[in-house]
């Protein structure tokens, strides 16, 4: 089956959102928790084979690899109704089961140690497909396993499969209050370096924003983890809907990604989804026209990343936007909406190249009833993402100035001799932020060349 996508779920957070993602996919494709095709779903033009393959007895198995250093979450999955869905060979829990202790270095080190075993699974899974198009990695960048082992796997994946796409769904930690993990900023910065250098596309899921959206949009005072994960899985399933319900265009990952990411480093995407509903509350959104949907997608309060519109005298703008509109849509509606958005100047775009709101029309799953005629997902490349990195760096800078909590890192080989890796990662993130800021100006076209020139001179 061509252009398959292999999903890697890492750590507590990664496995939780991964779990939610597979639950959603099964529901959309009419696959039972055991992997059996439901009787009502035997016909259909959906492509299940991008994310699933069929076992000898015809039941569907996700192309998923579940990895964790501690057994808690995966055990939970293995006790859920979906326990028979996954290929047991693809479920890997580190034998010592001690976890990474929220320590990036520990996770990275474990990843290094378990490299052979992990990549046996990944290689097998990759050989299982006809032509695997890419990998999707779900993880959080704050903890130990998802961030540390994730970083390690990212580096290795990139080496091993240079022509494959690597997309990540990365959950960014809350930055506006005291973190439950004190070394969170360290973990984040160290992971950000790998995301910058080794991933091709990162969909940023900002926990702060997820909480805010869950609170505001879903009328929840304290959203549960499951509800937050459901938001994430909505984004994940929505952004892959054109692959699974193919239409004229955007039927492979590359065409989605290449139109969003003009230069390799600016690959951190923000996302938005509307209308959002949760299981037990009726949505207050009653009317869904294409224009409504597209307009709401552009509203900052619906975006799953908290970004500043302006910072340090920079007016941020969109590099590119892709709206995936699901449902019965008349193409002319899309056009009218585009015209309106353009007239009202609802979106600011880069000044250094052509850009527009790309629209991909996608079918809805026939097996899930929604109250809404149209729903929409936005994936966008926005320079404002740098303000999120900025906040992380602020926290990081405060900690590293005092070299607080670095002992736990020094214990591991990477930081035994020095903390260079910290400074190096911080530098990479700084360059990334600089590049994003440069992308708001007309001179961005010459950005890399100028810098290269400068470094040559010095």
């Amino acid at each position, binding site marked *: 089956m061509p252009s398959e996508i292999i999903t890697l779920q890492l750590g507590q957070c990664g496995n939780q959102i991964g779990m939610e993602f597979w639950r959603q996919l099964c529901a959309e494709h009419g696959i039972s928790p055991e992997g059996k095709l439901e009787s009502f779903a035997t016909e259909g033009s959906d492509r299940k084979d991008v994310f699933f393959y069929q076992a000898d007895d015809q039941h569907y198995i996700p192309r998923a690899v579940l990895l964790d250093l501690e057994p808690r979450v995966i055990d939970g999955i293995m006790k859920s109704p979906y326990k028979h869905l996954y290929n047991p060979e693809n479920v890997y829990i580190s034998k010592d089961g001690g976890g990474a202790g929220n320590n990036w270095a520990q996770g990275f080190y474990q990843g290094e140690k378990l490299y052979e075993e992990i990549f046996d699974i990944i290689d097998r899974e990759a050989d299982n497909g006809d032509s695997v198009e890419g990998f999707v990695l779900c993880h959080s960048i704050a903890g130990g396993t998802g961030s540390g082992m994730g970083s390690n796997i990212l580096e290795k994946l990139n080496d091993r499969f240079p022509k494959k796409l690597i997309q990540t769904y990365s959950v960014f930690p809350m930055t506006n209050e005291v973190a439950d993990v004190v070394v969170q900023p360290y973990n984040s910065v160290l992971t950000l370096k790998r995301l910058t*250098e080794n991933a*091709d596309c990162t969909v940023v899921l900002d926990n702060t924003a997820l909480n805010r959206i869950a609170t505001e949009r879903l009328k929840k005072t304290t959203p549960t983890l499951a509800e937050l994960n459901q938001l994430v899985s909505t984004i994940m399933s929505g952004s892959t809907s054109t692959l699974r319900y193919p239409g*004229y265009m955007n039927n492979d990952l590359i*065409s989605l990604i*290449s139109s969003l990411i*003009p230069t390799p480093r600016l690959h951190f995407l923000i996302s938005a989804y509307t209308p959002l509903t949760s299981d037990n509350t009726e949505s207050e959104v009653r009317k869904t026209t294409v224009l409504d949907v597209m307009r709401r997608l552009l509203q900052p309060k619906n975006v799953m990343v908290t970004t500043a519109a302006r910072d340090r005298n920079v007016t941020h703008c969109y590099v590119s936007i892709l709206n995936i509109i699901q449902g019965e849509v008349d193409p002319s509606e899309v056009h009218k909406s585009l015209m309106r958005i353009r007239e009202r100047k609802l979106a600011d775009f880069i000044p250094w190249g052509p850009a527009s709101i790309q629209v991909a029309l996608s079918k809805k799953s026939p097996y899930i009833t929604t109250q809404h005629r149209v729903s929409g997902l936005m994936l966008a490349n926005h320079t404002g993402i740098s303000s999120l990195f900025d906040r992380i760096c602020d926290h990081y800078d405060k900690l590293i100035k005092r070299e607080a909590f670095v002992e736990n890192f020094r214990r591991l080989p990477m930081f035994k001799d020095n903390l260079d890796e910290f400074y190096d990662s911080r530098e990479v993130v700084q360059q990334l932020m600089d590049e994003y800021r440069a992308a708001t100006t007309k001179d961005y076209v010459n950005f*890399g060349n100028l810098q290269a020139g400068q470094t040559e001179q010095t």
Partner: protein
Amino acid sequence: MALHEALIALQTGCSGLLTLKQDDPYFKKRLPTIPYVHQGELEILDRLTQLGQHYRTLDEYIQNIFKDKKSGLYILSFAFELRSILQTYLNCLKQLEHECLIDTSLTLSHLLISLTDYNLLFPSLVSLINKLQTNGYRGCQILDIIRRYTLDGNIILSSTMKKLLCSCHKIFIKQITSILTRGQIYDEYDEFFIGLNNNINIEAMGMTTPSISRMTSTITSRSHSPDRDKQFNLQMPQQNPTITPGYSQYQLIPDMLPSYIPLQLADKILFIGESWLILKTNDEDNDKNFLSINSIDYDEQNHRVQQQLYALTLSDDFNIFELERIIEYTRIDLSLTLRNLFVDRFHLCNELEQIRGFYLIEHGELFSLFVNRTNQLLLNIKKSTNAIENDINEIFKQCLNDLHLETILTNVDKFKFKLNFSHNDNSTQETSTGCRRLLSRVQGISDNSNNSFDFWSCGWANLSIQYNVKYPMKAFFSENSKQRYNDIFHLLIILRYVQNELNNLWLILKNQHKNSLILHLRNAMSFFINNFQYYIQIDVLEYKYQQLIRSILSSTDFQKIKYLHEVFLSDIQQHSFMLLATAYQSIRNILSICVSFCLTAKQQENNNNFDENILRQFGRDFNDEIRLLFGILGMVQKHNALPHLGVFLTRLDFNRFLTNNNGSFGEF
């Protein structure tokens, strides 16, 4: 004495006194003076002689017609009617002779007065037959001529002419009746305005619009095609030695169509004829008669039509409105039957769905895969062989299997990929400055990069789909419409190929992690291609297609459905700029610049530094074409000629980058 002479002269055109030179009717030779005839009477005699001469001309004409076996029914009928007019003339002479015998004191003037009508009539009859003879008018053509003569203020003249016309109309109506009730052409002498279409490749039924220039080869068609016509004439009979009248084999013969029969009406008659053919022709595999699907009693209905039409011939005045009414009535009936047959029984919409699947690339994932797998194969082909075509078709089937689309695109056997390399490539390029510019450009590049490559002669630019349409869908999908579908396919598949190449380039460049010129150029190209593709596939094709399907399902009139389909095709061609030669050329140039760019970039992949000059050259060429295209489309937009064009321009210029940068996509 003079009376006697006159009477003879009236019949023969000459007498002892008055002779006209036989071989020159207009040269009168008469004794200058005759002693016992008054000069004034001589003048009258001259006129009477002239009348007689006319009579002789007409009579000879009739005799000739009767002798000639090939003159055709219309002329024959005309001659019969003419003879009866002459007969009345002779009767009149007989009457006069009788009067003369009784009353010898009658004057020549009496004769002249008595024959006044003929004095008027004969000259115009003679002029009529002269006209018919000299121009060799025949069949339905004479209807027009005669009708022109009926438009005369003189009642006698016009009523006589109407009689003549009426006699011809009897034949006309008979032929119409035949086609209306049985779908047969009763036409031994090729006189009717509908004839058998011996050349299957020409327009099929209902097509009266001039064939729209082939977009794939605007230049070829411009450089004109007498050769092609010749080829058709030579080839077709060989391929089809025995032509049995089948569906969609009638055609209008414009020369034969009387001007007072509206084209629409003729179209309807043609449609009815062909409908009968469809209904009566039995499929080889399917021995059912389609007449049975509707409970209408056709015999009875035909009988009624026959009677109504017959009633038409009884009146002198040809009642075109009544004819129109009868024909429309018959047409609606048949059209409904056909609609039911095609839409309900033969699932026209499914057929269109298949066509959308193949020609209009509905299943993007399928063609992406296909493009990926045949990428190199088609790129390196310069000429077509059966083996290669087989390979391509096999690969396609494999793709279909791999994506589990066999259940959706079920008609894969009907659609075959073909490679049609045009042989006169060189001449085509010479005719187009754009192409030549491009060629030299590509060659210019090739000096530097060892890449002599003309995209338009490779497999990708010459891939087409052969749609083996089965009975009775043949009646719906004419060769012309297939050609137009192929034209669209040609554009779509190239777009997809270019897109695929640009995406591959992205994959190659992604690990370089450099903000480089090549990336920006790739983005600009990709931006254009993606937006153009979206515009064509969604804004135009999908929108128009949905419209078509909706109106097909709501219509009860097969002819209208056919018409809508033709409109659909020309709409999508127009909206994809195929009919705007300059814009389309520009788009083609853009496409080939993109391809050259990708191929060159791929070659440079290993040594990693793309020569910046070549790169900038690509960028400038690309920008030039974009600017040109943007300019042309801007002009078209001003005239509001294409309602959907605004969509495309908005997309391209969404952040007003093109406007702010003077129509270019960046500085290269």
